[in-house]
């Protein structure tokens, strides 16, 4: 049983020489610490399009490394962060932004939770108010008064017997 479980791993090793690799230049950090810092900050706001749920800063994917290299080149050329973001969105669309832009298509995404919160608060207050209205203090009628007094009077009597 355990031997069977090892089979896929063995297969991977056997097939390894057949699998061709992507050409990936080694990532060379810039010698300028300011650029590296800017890249760090900027790439946290960008999405790796290959893995989609990772930022460009975290992703080990080939495309992410290429984009980081491109960003370094552009920063070195004196481009501002805004210009670089414009460069990327012109090619990959708004999806590359990890934090979605506020446009009419993303209004629901941005403001939906607040609308839900307000709706929930409204319902909560409405409910509490309704409950409170149910509790009304009615003055006791003469008959009820008499019965209450009778009951109270009977209590100490019970204790003595």
């Amino acid at each position, binding site marked *: 049983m355990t031997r069977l479980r090892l089979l896929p791993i063995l297969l991977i090793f056997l097939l390894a020489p057949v699998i*061709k*690799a992507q*050409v990936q*230049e080694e990532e060379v950090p810039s010698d300028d610490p300011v650029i590296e810092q800017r890249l760090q900050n900027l790439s946290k706001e960008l999405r790796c399009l290959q893995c989609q749920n990772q930022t460009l800063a975290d992703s080990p994917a080939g*495309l992410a490394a*290429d984009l980081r290299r*491109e960003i370094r080149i552009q920063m070195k050329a004196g481009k501002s962060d805004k210009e670089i973001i414009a460069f990327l969105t012109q090619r*990959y*669309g708004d*999806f590359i932004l990890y934090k979605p832009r506020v446009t009419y298509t993303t209004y629901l995404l941005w403001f939906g939770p607040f609308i839900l919160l307000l709706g929930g608060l409204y319902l909560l207050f409405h409910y509490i108010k309704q409950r409170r209205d149910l509790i009304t203090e009615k003055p006791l009628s003469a008959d009820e008064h008499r019965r209450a007094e009778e009951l109270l009077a009977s209590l100490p009597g019970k204790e003595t017997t």
Partner: protein
Amino acid sequence: MLRYLIPLVIFVVLAVFLAIGLTRDPHELKSVLINKPAPTFRVPQLKASDKTISNEDMRGKVWLLNVWASWCVACREEHPYLIEYAKSGVVPIYGLNYKDRREDALATLDELGDPYTASAVDLDGRVGIDFGVYGAPETYVIDQGGTIRFKYVGPMMPDVWKEKILPVVQELNRGTAK
């Protein structure tokens, strides 16, 4: 009565939203380059490495740009079909050999056949960035004026070819006939 209807309505609305969400492939991103001019490139050719190739060379005709690589498994899946499409002569297919070793790329074409009129070499993926490539294979339909008209991400299987690529190509070719 309303008290019982509200949860039902909420459930139905949620179910509809989730059902729509299930049918959508998150890996299929709409290209922003549709109806925009194809990015300019001039890079060496794969087979005739002493010659360069540029999108400008294809001006005046409808052509396909197919992003491929020897390491790309899904590219192998579409490869035999690409050869068929190329043989049909409907539209020339140009390759963009994306981040590939020349010898690997040439070996793949030797083994599987070469559907491409020519392949452009994009060794460092820079042309890919300009085209917004995020995963091979990708296929772009480019018109006579050099404008990108359609993009398909994933292997271009016969159903995709018939239903998505061919209609666009034929429509564009009709445009020139007029």
